[in-house]
């Protein structure tokens, strides 16, 4: 069954990463990618590799920090965690997303008020 997968909207990847890290604490790149897949229920089509430039960008902006560590399989991996500034950014972006989607939903809902 070919499901119709949405392409990931640009800019939302950052939000997803921040949210993931905020919810799950410290994760390595692979873990973040897997988690995003899981949450979206495999509804989005993501080239996992694109997460790395995104992580770099988030780190440059100071919203996440990184540290080399050892994974559960004794593998060397880079772990990322959200920073305090990142938490603020997340809250701000969440808010604007909710507002935007509220407006959109209101438009798309058929109701007498809207006709």
């Amino acid at each position: 069954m070919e499901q119709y997968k949405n392409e990931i909207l640009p800019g939302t990847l950052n939000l997803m990463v921040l949210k993931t890290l905020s919810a799950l604490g410290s994760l390595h790149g692979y873990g973040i990618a897997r988690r995003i897949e899981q949450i979206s229920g495999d509804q989005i089509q993501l080239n996992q590799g694109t997460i790395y430039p995104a992580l770099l960008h988030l780190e440059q902006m100071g919203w996440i920090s990184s540290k080399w560590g050892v994974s559960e399989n004794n593998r060397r991996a880079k772990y990322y965690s959200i920073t305090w500034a990142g938490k603020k950014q997340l809250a701000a972006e969440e808010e604007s997303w909710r507002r935007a989607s509220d407006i959109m939903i209101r438009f798309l809902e058929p109701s007498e008020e809207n006709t």
Partner: protein
Amino acid sequence: MTWLRVLVQRLRGLFLKRKLEQELEDEIRSHLEMQIEDNLRQGMSLEEAQRAARLKFGGVEQVKEAYRDKSRFVWIESLWQDLRFGLRNLRKRPGFLLFAILTLALGIGANTAIFSVANAVLMQPLPIKDGDRIVELRSFSPRDPIPGGIPYPEYLELRKRVAEYVDLFGIADDHLVLGASGDGNNTAVDSEAEELHSLLVTGNYFSALGGNALLGRTLTPEDDQAIGAHPVVVMSHGFWQRRFGAAPDIVGRTILIKGLAFTVVGVAEAGFTGAERRAPDVWAPLLMHDQFKRGDNRLTPHGPSPHVMGRLRPGVSLRQAGAAVELAFSQLERRNSRFGPDHQIKLYQASPHSWEDRQAVTIAASAVLGAATLVLLIACLNVAGLTLARMATRQREIAVRLSLGASRGRVLRQLFNEGLLLSSMGGLAGLLLSRWMTSALSFVMGGDGPNIALDWRVMAYTLGISMLTAVVIGLLPAWQTTRFDLIPALKQEGAGFNLRASRFPLRSMLVVGQIALSLVLLLGAGLFGRTILHMMTIDPGFEPKNLTTVRFNFGAPGSPHYDETRAAQFQRDLHERLVATPMVKDVVWASRGPLRVEPIENPRDSIRYGLDVEGRTFKVHQDGAGEVAVAEIRQFTRGPDGKLSMKEEEINFASHNEVSPNYFAVFGIPLLYGRTFTEQETRDEAAVVVINEALQRRHWPGENPVGKSIWAGFGIKEIIGVAKDNRLLNAQNKPFIYQPLPLKNGRLGLEPIVRSDASPGALAATLRTTIQSLDPKLQIEVRQFSEQLKDMFRFLLLGTSLASLVGVIALALVVIGLYGVTSFVVLQRTHEIGVRMALGAQATDVMRLVMRQGLRLVIIGVAIGLLISALAMRVLDAALFGISPTDPLTFGAISLLLGLVALLACWIPARRATKVDPLVALRCE
């Protein structure tokens, strides 16, 4: 602030490149391994697991690229790469490198030098503390291109309204006043009287310009209260030392100016010159203006019209203040009829140079800069052409790059960067060259020239034109070069870059462009040259050798004092004595010398005149009291002093001279209509004028205007004659109004011109004795008229030489360019030439083959050049004299010259082509 953070990170990435790459490598490997493990756990085989992992990950190289782009400044790295590569390339061809840098240095250097000079003169602020905060106000009317001052009442109003932006102060035109520094009843200064150079200023002048008093006080706003109520002066340091021997008790003493005692209240500190280049003798309050007015001050009948300057308030920019001033001005009631509705006001940064000087420099610099830009363009085209030729040998290299996956944009960028490298080196060399040129110029001009420093504007300008140069020499060839078929190029066949494939390859177009531009430059120089020649050989209508002028130095130290009455008497006596002298044929008096070299008119030399609505005779009648009244003419007003004024809208401007009746005869100016003044008219200062042809053409073309009336010099005058235009004396063919010059008002600055057949030496001696018999102590200067003419020509000759030099440089560049192109063509077609010769072609056939290409380019180039010139030279119409801007002789001769030189440049390599050994040629590819 995040951008700063990102910047820092990226810089860090630049330096830790390898470490970051390694880390990313590790991360990705780790990621893939983890994915593979998970896949295995889900039951896939190892192969499936690996494949699935890679698929899910996406392209590793793409990810790495994206990462790299973000982690550092990739463009810096590629730039650095390109530069290193370019440098290596250039080192392999030292001849090309040297030539390119030299050519570019010349072009850029010349431009920068001219710009530096203009920048120094135009942008130089006043040499006082915070001198760049001082501004000046100029009022313009479209019909009078000379900016004037602001009448005093308007000045006060304006000052109030813009007070928060700028602190305005006023300065009245320098007045050369004859003052008797007599004594009166105060401590005597000296019994010898002399001339005083005084500057009338408003009370805040000193505070605005930061001038302090060495002794006593400076002028303050208290001295600004009422007209004529402040007989005080501040002395300049130099005057105090020179004239009063630095007397310590100078404060409180008086000096007499035109009979009124002025108290000296202070001495300015040493070195303070205010807003001028040289300090006056004294500063006096502006409201004492009446006291300083010259006897018959025709220029300012309504009271002082000071030249207004100001100091910007802290934090206010020139633009803000300018807008405020313009707004306030437009809101002013135009009480004063001196301002018409189309008068404008503008604020400028003050400069130690006069307005006229600055205008002259602007015009001259623009013209020369225009020519220099053309030369730079030609130089760029030259280098571009040669670069293009070299590109042909790099086809293979570029083809390889393109086939390996480099985008065309990347290759273009690389070629552009190489051009940038070249132009930067050229620009640097040009900057050095320009410094050398400007120091040579400063040396030639002596210490009086402006300080031509290297400031940011000059650097920015150099950078700018270097960039533009880079675009021309980098992009132009690059664009052409990356557009060809890959496969034949890889195989290195000539077909990849086929000369015959396109009729007008870029390289040829470059040469055509060069030829056209050089033609324009050479034509400009040629036209100027012929103008000069014409001016020098024209029959002036009089014999310059027979004319001598005398200048009186009334104000020199040690000279006796002359006030206006005494000067008038002196001139009358001198006139009588000279007329009685046997060797003197004629004595002509004029208020200004007939020869004018400056392109900009001195404001004192123009006169306002007007006509009635229909341009015909005024309706005048006498009323009962015998007064001439003006009836039915709406555009007149009678001013408070009883003088007739015309409304501003109707006023025109003409050049002006006051002359004795024999002026026209002596200077060989025939009168087309009417007659010159009579002696009686001159003595009585009758209301008559003589106009010149240009004026007549302007208002009464084809008619005889004698008998018509014209309002000029604040009165209605009758036209009694029309003088023919004399292009030598009136090179710009301005309209002229001549008024009779009575010798009674004693205006100083009158120079008698003496005509005589005697030898100059004898005449000079006679003049001296005659003058000395009247006044033994008066210093005079005797000058030959022909000397003045020579001076005028010298100035024009300089201009022509400069233009010719530029033209010659352009020509040289064209020759080199053409030679290069033709040589290259020969090189490319060696194989073909060999074949032809083997098949029986003669030397002449080969010559014709090669020359035909060159000839075609030359013809096209000359044609385009002629077309451009026909349009462009019209711009010079005002400056040319005696020939039309599209003079066929000049055009023809120059075109021929250029054509011949260009053909020669083609001929030499063509001749080389005939020497080709067919066997060698056939073997070479």
